């Protein structure tokens, strides 16, 4: 696959092909939001589920740790009280990581991959 002898000329050919294709209007306009088939995960339900899972998972871990520490240091539930707050904060941090501008690796990789796949499909024609 990658043992092609003419691979060193690959990028320039790819660029020329891309330029030619965009001249002819054959390429879809890049980065049209919501047009990729893989975007179904970004539906409202998908976003809701992702946010919910992130929030709850942090809370679950925190409560588990707090419960364990409370058992370890006697039955006083002070650790649960502290760790519920910390877990809520960690959940919000998870959600912020997911949606922070310029920090969404998931979406970046997707768009990058989509463009590359489009170029590859063009070559094989």
């Amino acid at each position, binding site marked *: 696959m990658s043992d092609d002898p003419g691979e060193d000329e690959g990028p320039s050919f790819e660029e020329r092909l891309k330029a030619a294709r965009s001249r002819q209007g054959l390429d879809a306009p890049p980065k049209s939001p919501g047009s990729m088939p*893989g975007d179904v995960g970004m539906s409202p339900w998908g976003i809701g*589920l992702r946010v919910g*899972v992130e929030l709850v998972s942090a809370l679950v871990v925190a409560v588990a740790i707090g419960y364990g520490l409370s058992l370890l240091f006697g039955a006083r539930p002070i650790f649960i009280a502290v760790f519920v707050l910390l877990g809520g904060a960690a959940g919000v941090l998870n959600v912020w990581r997911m949606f922070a501008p310029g920090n969404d690796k998931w979406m970046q990789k997707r768009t990058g991959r989509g463009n590359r796949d489009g170029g590859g499909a063009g070559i094989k024609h």
Partner: protein
Amino acid sequence: MAAQGSSIDAMSQFELHPVFGHLGASLGFAQSNLFMIVAALLTLGLLWVGMSPRAMVPGRLQSAAEMAYEAVMSMCVDTIGPEGRGFFPFVFTLFFFILFGNLLGVWPYDFTFTSHIVVTLALTLVVFFLSTGVGLYYHGGHFFSYFVPQGVPALLLPLLVPIEVLSYLSRIISLSVRLFANMMAGHVMLEVFGAFVVMLAGAGIIFWIPSALSEAVLIALIGFEILVATLQAYVFAILTCIYLHDAVHLH
């Protein structure tokens, strides 16, 4: 099975039953284990049979095998960076194990082993300990600076470091629950609508139209399940790559 009497029993499909008679019963070998082996064999078969012609112009199966290889390889390299090549076998194995596990479950009479939290939690723990180990291997003790956010006054660190650690630990839950919940919810929906079809059709001739509508919903749901199966396998693999990226590059 789904509709016993007048109640819908949507959860019994997830029960484990030993296969292969007495041998399976004494080994504790359930249908879940059987389909794990089937999924592994299908992955091997796709690569083995697909790549056996070694044709310059690939046929269908060889194209599928090559595209599978290239898609996972580009996912690794794009997400993790040049170091991603080293993690390619792991991510490939993980992705195809989950993908075939999810897709097998849509097939009639097959068992979805990814609908058990034990299975997804075990897979997630492998990912978690691997990414933590990779971080320690690449950075040594410096790895723990991952939990110290940059540009924060030192006074806030006692508050923020535990939050970062909790956020890191919550990956275990979020990664496993996401896959498990998606697969289980989908199969419960299939079971419920399948039971609607049978129960309404048996309830008399005036219920045949609602029964047909349920059947239409069921067909749409199966298509949706195939999509969810693929998407969730992809999500699991890409999140594994992102975690490995964090471990290799810290931030």
